[in-house]
């Protein structure tokens, strides 16, 4: 039997573009750890419908599902792209400034 596909719904917030995730209370949160994980296709379909509604309500832009690692002990994206979206740039001048204490 195929392993269940675990997915999280993400989008960018309309007003400022910030990466957000849908949590179990139907709120858009910035912390991936707080996101709801869809474990069935039925759950995934429900998240997609909530995402579409949030687009209509002008809360977010471009919602989509992405896969998370079913073997991880926390919510861990499968793709490097979603890792970087969740954690921010791996190298940035703003990070450098912070590092240098500027």
């Amino acid at each position, binding site marked *: 039997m195929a392993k269940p596909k675990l997915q999280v719904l993400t989008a960018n917030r309309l007003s400022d*573009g910030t*990466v957000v995730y849908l949590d179990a209370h139907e709120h858009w949160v910035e912390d991936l750890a707080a996101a709801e994980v869809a474990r069935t296709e039925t759950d995934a379909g429900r998240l997609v419908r909530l995402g579409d509604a949030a687009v209509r309500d002008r809360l977010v832009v471009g919602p989509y599902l992405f896969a998370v690692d079913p073997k991880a002990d926390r919510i861990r994206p499968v793709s490097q792209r979603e890792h970087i979206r969740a954690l921010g740039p791996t190298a940035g001048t703003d990070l*450098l400034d912070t590092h240098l204490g500027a």
Partner: protein
Amino acid sequence: MYAYDAFDHAFVRERANEFREQVARRIAGELTEDEFKPLRLMNGLYLQLHAYMLRVAIPYGTLSSRQMRRLAHIARRWDRGYGHFTTRQNIQFNWPKLVDTPDILDSLAEVEMHAIQTSGNCIRNVTADPFSGAAADEIEDSRVWAEIIRQWATLHPEFTFLPRKFKIAVTGAESDRTAVKFHDIGLRMRRNTEGETGFEVIVGGGQGRTPIVGTTIRAFLPKRHLLSYLEAVLRTYNLLGRRDNLYKARIKILLAETGVEAFTEAVEAEWERIRDGALTLPEEEIRRIEAHFAPPLLAAAGPDPAHVAAKLEHRDFAAWCRSNLFPHRVPGHAIVTISLKTPGGIPGDATAAQMDAVADLADRFSHGEIRVTHEQNLVLADVRETDLFALWQGLGEAGLASANIGLISDIIACPGLDYCNLANARAIPVAQRISRHFSDPALAEEIGPITLNISGCINACGHHHAGHIGILGVDKHGEEFYQITLGGAADDDAAVGRILGPSVPYDGVVEAIDTIIQTYRSIRETDERFIDTVRRTGINPFKEALYGDR
């Protein structure tokens, strides 16, 4: 530099006001994202991985110190304290909020700046020689022609919805510093047998997934006919270019499919029809634009003993002079390139404090003007030799005195997967690792002139095809791998690099580049540049060193 007239001011202000209304309508739900997206892109506003990104136009890469300070202000007030200078002589802010962008555009308009035509299928910001008006090898100032093209192209009703984006470069010097053969149209200043100046017209160059070196379709175009000829090329492309396939829509594909001869015939036929019409440039109009770019009055001077003494006393200063200075048309002066490539830093990034520092130094030492290069560095074009040491010290205080222009750590890199929605792999951390590895200035000088360009996807914003060493990030089953090419060049001998072999993993890139460099050092002839060795030997010695019998 060009100063707005009343029309320009009104136009840019009205455009900013229009965008304010469009943003308000989007927030209020009167526009869907599908409706809003083309409107925001027409104002340079993208939605990237983490946030919106605003790409601000720097026409032909020329900025006043006042404009640079305004960019610093925008970085501080509405972004995260820095900006990213791009390979198209523009600047990008990575973190603006949608709701703030109307205020940012207003702020830009106050200093004669905007974000128009930095996105979309229109004629984009015209690339010009960053040494314009100052270079010893210059025939004419390319910015004059870039500005004339800008005025013709801005909101040109016929060319607002082309099959794809369209990039034009102008170079007015003997040496090409604009990658003129990798643009949709490249214009190269030439003299004919009568000594008259005009343009060689090169068409169909480009990078992306189908890299092609442009082809000359007219050896000499009199200057007064520049706009009518461009109109004929654009009109031919607009009529015949493909719109059914995004990847086949650039003019380079049209040229390849129709053949150079048939394409040229179509352009010339259209040009014959319109050549002596309203687009013929009156001499007085050319003079009017030229007056905006009148060079500063510089007094020629002989060698400065204090400058020579400073080089003897300060080895770092001497190294900086060797790599970052270029010959000026007026004796006793130099063109200074400011490296935005600190080893381990982010290519093209400048903090707000650095932008302010450059603006101050431009005011003190270079008539308040700054240029942006497509290699993601900055230029002060008119510096007296006697001021170089003080300038170098000032740059050092701002962390901008890296002596590496044209050397291995002067890496071009696109934002890659750290920021870009299109990227497959990261580019910035790869550049950081390589520049750290080769951070010893003596080693970099010993390796000599070389270009190393990195793109995070096949769209090639990092110009990897045109790098002596090119690195292209690819996605292999969710993991970052990097394809290496050798032999590309963006200058007079423009060429597309050849793929060396199978791609290498993220952690193997530095070692692979090191192997390539060691191979070059072991097989080069006396004083032979890296690119000349590759051209002499081909890629096989490098391939064997990197892959062995694989």
